[in-house]
């Protein structure tokens, strides 16, 4: 009998608090299983199933693991603190009834062992069961073939178990410290502590608003994608701080202002809800802020994950316009001699005929490229600006001969000497454009280019906005700029020829065809001594090289979904705990109101308006955060090669709407729990 006393007490403690403990265990199981699944996906046995991009996938999944790990520590610590606070009274009573601290620690230890054992066991079990599904999902997402063998990764199991045992040990330690530090009386009272009505703190409220303003400013006005990533993190941190400050102090402030308005405040519909909101905000402001931030994270992840995923095909096509894309890079303009290019074209043609293949040319164009700075209508080059201060004005400049432009677009534009067309992502509302380097200035009169866009695919264009200048005297102008640039060291420029074609009909695979034609063409180049060691050629085969993008986007998509599920679970749990704890608090309050003469209907109405306001504040915040984060995330997605703004807008709006529905459902379900608690104590 005696030996089973403490286990029985611990088990009873869990059973009696199942309303609290059960969701906690459920969340633990969710996190543990997701951790296992991600580590499983990162394992070499899984990534080896992928055709390409195994490293990318492994990296993304490992990062996801780290995120879940960090989040688990913070979140489980927080929930345990909440649980302990609610149960402190129970422990205080045991203490008063004659149990010493050692006995209490024994109960807590047993309880921790029970809950963590259940969590880890079922977490791993669920993880193992779902891992095959996740693996198949990932591989299908990336677009490879999957096998159907089921396996368990012992290493991942061990890692997961060890990690979560460590977390639970940490949580256990903090509980023990709390119990040991507090006297019986303070334990008895601790679930009633903090009942003071907060004073409105102007300073904190204003500070929150200012910080939020700064964060929003950063988010909206950061120009180039490279610095966007750095600033983005700063903005995220600022937004988190501001959200907490605003929720805790700002909302109290707002309610205080409402209270000052006697006519508004002393109205049966607002009286109770406004005052309880003031009372609640400070203590639960942190909870609301957490919900708002988690909601924002989910929305950002879901919308960008879906954007990347839906945009993958377009991204690949923008990057690799044809099945096989050849780039010839020369140090000097003579590489782009029409005669020389014809030789190369002939080499392609000869190879095609030998193999009886059928091809369709998609692009055949020459250009000179370098990075430049835009100042009004002046395009200046690096050598003049050794220190780059303004990233936003950096452009990837491509000077294109009008012949290439005509060949690519199928138009027949004729440019006179001194005339040029400019294609830029930003409007150029000038009469002329000037290319200046050192003392040299090449000035062109601008000709209307019409509505059609013109874009050259390539690597650099993914980072810097492209600026294309179509000129009649291509060789002359690019050579003269090159000459000046060469006076300095480290000047970077290229003469390039793009030759992209679709392979319509061939006995060879596209990759094989590309490799063999590359060998053939290289031979033709080697035979040309003038350019032999001053040139370089490479190709991209869309399917093969696109697989890398596919793997990256697929992994990002997958991780976005998984992390959203984990965060979603956490948000639901926070909401649920809020409802429960407020239910217990409010049941006493509404009992008093009933005695003073409030009808059940009025009470219900009051509860409704109160819950509605309090619970939809986070959704509102998340929406505003998302709206302001939008331009910045758009720029970061640009870095990944996604330029389709419309797609991103659509996915963001749809994610927000879906999330709102999900949130409303959670709200409805949990508010029923609240009603039950409030009305149960009434009878």
């Amino acid at each position: 009998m005696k030996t089973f006393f403490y286990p029985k007490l611990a088990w009873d403690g869990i059973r009696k608090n199942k309303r609290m403990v059960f969701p906690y265990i459920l969340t633990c199981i969710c996190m543990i299983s997701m951790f296992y699944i991600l580590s499983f996906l990162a394992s070499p046995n899984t990534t080896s199933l992928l055709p390409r991009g195994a490293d990318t996938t492994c990296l993304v999944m490992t990062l996801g693991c780290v995120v879940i790990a960090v989040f688990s520590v913070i979140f489980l610590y927080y929930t345990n603190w909440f649980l302990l606070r609610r149960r402190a009274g129970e422990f205080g009573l045991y203490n008063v009834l004659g149990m010493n601290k050692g006995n209490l620690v024994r109960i807590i230890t047993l309880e921790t062992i029970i809950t963590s054992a259940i969590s880890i066991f079922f977490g791993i079990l669920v993880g193992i069961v779902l891992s095959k599904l996740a693996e198949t999902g990932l591989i299908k997402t990336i677009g490879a073939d999957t096998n159907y063998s089921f396996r368990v990764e012992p290493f991942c199991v061990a890692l997961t178990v060890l990690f979560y045992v460590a977390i639970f040990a940490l949580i256990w330690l903090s509980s023990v410290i709390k119990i040991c530090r507090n006297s019986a009386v303070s334990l008895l009272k601790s679930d009633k502590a903090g009942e003071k009505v907060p004073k409105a703190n102007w300073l904190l409220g204003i500070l929150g608003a200012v910080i939020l303003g700064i964060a929003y400013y950063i988010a909206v006005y950061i120009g180039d994608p490279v610095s966007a990533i750095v600033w983005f993190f700063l903005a995220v941190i600022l937004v988190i701080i501001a959200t907490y400050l605003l929720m805790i102090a700002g909302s109290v402030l707002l309610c205080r202002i409402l209270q000052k308005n006697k006519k508004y405040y002393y109205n049966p519909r607002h009286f109770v809800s406004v005052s309880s909101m003031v009372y609640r905000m400070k203590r639960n402001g942190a909870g609301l802020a957490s919900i708002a931030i988690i909601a924002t994270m989910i929305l950002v992840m879901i919308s960008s994950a879906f954007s990347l995923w839906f945009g993958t095909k377009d991204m690949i096509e923008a990057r690799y316009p044809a099945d096989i894309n050849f780039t010839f890079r020369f140090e000097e303009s003579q590489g782009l001699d029409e005669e020389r290019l014809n030789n190369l074209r002939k080499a392609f043609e000869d190879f095609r005929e030998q193999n009886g293949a059928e091809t369709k040319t998609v692009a055949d164009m020459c250009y000179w490229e370098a990075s430049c700075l835009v100042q009004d209508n002046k395009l200046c080059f690096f050598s003049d600006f050794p220190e780059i201060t303004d990233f936003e004005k950096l452009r990837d400049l491509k000077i294109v001969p009008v012949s290439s432009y005509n060949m690519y677009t199928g138009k027949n534009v004729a440019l006179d000497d001194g005339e040029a067309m400019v294609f830029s992502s930003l409007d150029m509302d000038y009469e002329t454009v000037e290319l200046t380097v050192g003392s040299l200035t090449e000035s062109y009169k601008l000709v209307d280019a019409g509505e059609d866009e013109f874009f050259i695919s390539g690597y650099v264009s993914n980072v810097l906005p492209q600026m294309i200048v179509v000129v009649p005297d291509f060789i002359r102008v690019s050579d003269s700029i090159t000459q000046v640039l060469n006076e300095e060291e480290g000047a970077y420029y290229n003469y390039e020829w793009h030759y992209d074609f679709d392979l319509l009909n061939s006995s060879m695979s596209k990759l094989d065809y590309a490799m063999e034609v590359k060998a053939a063409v290289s031979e033709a180049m080697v035979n040309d001594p003038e350019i032999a060691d001053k040139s370089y050629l490479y190709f991209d085969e869309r399917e093969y090289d696109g697989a890398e993008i596919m793997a990256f986007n697929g992994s990002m998509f997958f991780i976005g979904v998984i992390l959203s599920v984990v965060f979603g679970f956490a948000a639901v749990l926070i909401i649920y705990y809020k409802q429960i704890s407020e239910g217990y608090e409010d049941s006493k309050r509404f009992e008093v109101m009933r005695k003073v003469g409030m009808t059940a209907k009025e009470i219900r109405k009051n509860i409704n308006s109160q819950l509605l306001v309090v619970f939809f504040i986070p959704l509102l915040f998340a929406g505003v955060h998302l709206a302001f984060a939008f331009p910045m995330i758009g720029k970061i997605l640009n870095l990944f090669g996604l330029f389709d703004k419309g797609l991103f807008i659509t996915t963001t709006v749809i994610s927000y709407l879906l999330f709102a529905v999900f949130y409303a459902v959670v709200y409805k379900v949990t508010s029923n729990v609240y009603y039950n608690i409030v009305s149960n104590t009434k009878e």
Partner: protein
Amino acid sequence: MSLLEVKNLKKIYKTRFGGQEVEALKDVSFEVEEGEFVAIMGESGSGKTTLLNILAALDKATAGKVILKDMDLSGISEKKIATFRRDNLGFVFQEFNLLDTFSIEDNIFLPLVLAGKSYKSMRSKLTPIAARLGISELLKKYPYEVSGGQKQRAAVARALITDPKIILADEPTGALDSRASDELLRLFVDVNSMGQTILMVTHSAKAASCASRVLFIKDGEVFHQIYRGEGTNDNFYQKITETLTLLTQGGNR
């Protein structure tokens, strides 16, 4: 015609499982005249609280009638009962039942706000009451910032502000120390002398000795009642304790 008439009140509780019946009130009848200060005494389990809950329309009687100024409580629909309570009854509880989310002032305003009164009219009602109860200085404070006696005075103010026909007090001195109890009782006598009818449930002979009449309840029935008459508080107190002794010794009337 009495202000409050209680006729053959009966209340039976049924336990949820097993259907065992507990008779909380057997047959209670009494009347309260306008301007009276009546104390109801009895041991725990005698049915005091049940009686008060029925009078407060918080609970329904199994049989019998409660008539407050020509209105039969059992005849009021569930919807209107809250309004009825708000307009006609004032409550003072043992645990004060002030809401910690409201300042003292807002706590006192609560019933008026629920009745949809304007701020100006509430304000003009509060000022004299607060002055009389000596809480004018405390109005902006919160319940956790004031003492138990002050809280109870605020609760009395909340009960008085609606000009109720009758104040129902449930062990109002139960949570107070003796000095605060004395103050509160003096306040009750004072309020009563201005014509306010009070019905107080208590088990303190001291508290009961301030009333003008004391009803004793035992085993769900009115066992005995005594009037103060012209006697002093001490005399009355003496009589009450004697009756209580009789009550506990199980004697008959």
